[in-house]
């Protein structure tokens, strides 16, 4: 077997090996180099896998050559390849940024541990997306979660500790709900392989333990993806974590959880059980609408820019789950494409806030007054990212909202299309708060007239902003793969 056929295993193994090595070298520079190279390699592998899927279809990889369903299977289809590219891509952009950024936010002697934890978190997130084994999903989920708790606790404010603790409690409850769901499915079907499981479930979709498993999995995964009203852990975690960590988590952690939800709904339980016999679409629709309006409204009244965008994340997750609730190809396309578009937009925004934090020393709105004069590039970048959150044409956010509105109209829900537009107006309000403070207030005394963040911070952040604009203008890649993934998911379910 050539090396190319082992790409699915290498995808997870490379960052996994980088983590203990980073601890062993105990040197900031070496650890940084190791983990960054591993993440670039992971990104290259993800792109290669994505290309292979395009030409050859789904890849099934038997880990350790134990044939599935007995052995653990790594399974790459269109959706998982898309998520792998997003996660590895964000890590590859965020890591070069981290070097300068954590110098200001994390004590120097903990830097190599930061890189080890980052590599572990990346391992977990990539593992969730690639594995085809239900229990394996739980294990990778916990690898990602445990390292995330540590990364959040590294924030220099003491409230980061409490945010991390609260996330640990909520996250563990969520993960335990997921294990209960997987356990019930295992008891009923006697298999942990997702494909095998879905075949065996077809004859027993009326059985009560299967329905209970669906309930446990829905609640558990919803906790992980911060579906309103299970989002309480998210704002504090994003607000007090180091800026790099906020950027990476906001772009990937909740997105991977959405992937798990899609995987279980469409590939395991099947569309007919989840969407036709149970009132799940109605529940999802109601919760998504609540998230879009309530979280956006709360975001308007925040005094800290990181918290403001954290609440905006909860609202944007509402758009993602809204697309899912339509149960149509166009709705799912909107969901998958918004995973990507919101991921790059939010990562860019949190990276730019990190730039501002290194210069002005905090992310409260009062400190950011006059940012447009002090740091013109950073402030302009945040405005562009904000426009993408609103969904202004020419930005990535517009593309996903366009497909969301199309899916709503396709279902005949014209009032829903209006609701999507109305909730975007709330986004205008919270983005305007930043614009007003950055451009129409004088900078506080004591700040230099003009001092831009160092290039090593600005370049990665602007790379993502440029991607936001690029994917808003050229949608062939993102929408193309999202539509393919959506069609494949629904095809599997039928």
């Amino acid at each position: 077997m050539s090396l190319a056929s082992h790409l699915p295993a290498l995808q997870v193994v490379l960052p996994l090996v980088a983590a203990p090595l980073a601890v062993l070298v105990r040197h900031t520079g070496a650890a940084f180099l190791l983990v960054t190279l591993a993440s670039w390699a992971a990104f290259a592998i993800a792109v290669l896998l994505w290309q292979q899927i395009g030409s050859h279809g789904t890849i099934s990889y038997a880990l350790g050559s134990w044939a599935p369903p007995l052995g653990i299977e790594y399974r790459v289809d269109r959706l998982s390849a898309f998520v792998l590219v997003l996660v590895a891509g964000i890590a590859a952009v965020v890591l070069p940024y981290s070097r300068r950024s954590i110098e200001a936010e994390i004590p120097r002697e903990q830097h190599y541990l930061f890189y080890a934890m980052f590599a572990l978190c990346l391992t977990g997130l990539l593992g969730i997306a690639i594995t085809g084994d239900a229990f394996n999903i739980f294990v990778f989920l916990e690898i990602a979660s445990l390292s995330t708790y540590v990364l959040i606790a590294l924030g220099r404010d003491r409230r980061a500790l409490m945010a991390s603790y609260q996330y640990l409690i909520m996250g563990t409850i969520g993960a335990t709900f997921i294990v209960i769901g997987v356990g019930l499915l295992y008891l009923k079907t006697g298999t942990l392989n997702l494909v095998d499981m879905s075949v065996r479930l077809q004859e027993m979709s009326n059985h009560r333990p299967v329905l209970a498993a669906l309930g446990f999995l829905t609640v558990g995964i919803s906790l992980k993806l911060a579906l309103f009203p299970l989002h309480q852990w998210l704002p504090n975690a994003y607000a007090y974590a180091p800026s790099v960590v906020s950027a990476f988590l906001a772009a990937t952690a909740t997105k991977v959880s959405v992937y798990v939800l899609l995987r279980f709904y469409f590939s395991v339980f099947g569309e007919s059980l989840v969407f036709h016999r149970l009132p799940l679409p109605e529940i999802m629709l109601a919760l998504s609408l609540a998230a879009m309006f309530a979280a956006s409204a709360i975001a308007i009244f925040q005094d800290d820019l990181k918290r403001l965008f954290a609440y905006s994340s909860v609202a944007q997750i509402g758009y993602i789950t809204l697309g899912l609730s339509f149960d149509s190809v166009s709705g799912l396309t909107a969901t998958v494409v918004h995973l990507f578009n919101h991921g790059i937009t939010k990562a860019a925004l949190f990276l730019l806030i990190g730039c501002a934090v290194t210069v002005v020393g905090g992310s409260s709105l009062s400190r950011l007054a006059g940012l447009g004069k002090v740091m013109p590039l950073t402030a302009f970048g945040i405005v562009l990212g904000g426009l993408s959150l609103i969904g202004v044409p020419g930005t990535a956010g517009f593309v996903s909202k366009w497909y969301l509105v199309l899916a709503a109209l396709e279902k005949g829900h014209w009032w829903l299309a209006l609701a999507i537009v109305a909730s975007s107006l709330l986004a205008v309000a919270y983005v305007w708060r930043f614009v007003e403070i950055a451009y129409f207030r004088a900078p506080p005394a004591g700040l230099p007239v003009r001092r831009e963040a160092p290039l090593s911070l600005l370049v990665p952040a602007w790379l993502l902003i440029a991607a936001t604009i690029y994917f808003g203008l050229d949608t062939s890649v993102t929408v193309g793969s999202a539509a393919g993934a959506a069609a494949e998911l629904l095809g599997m379910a039928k």
Partner: protein
Amino acid sequence: MNLASHFSYWITLFLMVAGLFIVIARGNLIKKLVGLGIFQTSVYLLYIAPGKLIGGTAPILAEGFKVYSNPLPHVLILTAIVVGVATLALGLALVVRIREAYDTIEEDEILLQDHARETEAPFER
């Protein structure tokens, strides 16, 4: 179906609900972790109990043994126990750091301190 034949499920359910209740109802950070531990442990039982057949042995071919218990749930739960231990250790480490920073491990007192600081000096780092 009588109640006694399913007693392992009743114990599992009781532990599950009791653990979750402690996590929600208690404000002491250590007690919350204790509740979380009970909640996770109940799941171990959920997996292991159905894997055991009365009179079953380990799945090793030998003369005179015909009934085997399923070993896979045990292996899965071994992994889950490791995850549970890691979670508990990390949780306790966080509580130590929280106690150093706030001088208390009662959730409401910590929130009070944070609130007081936010109203005095909002978002001062």
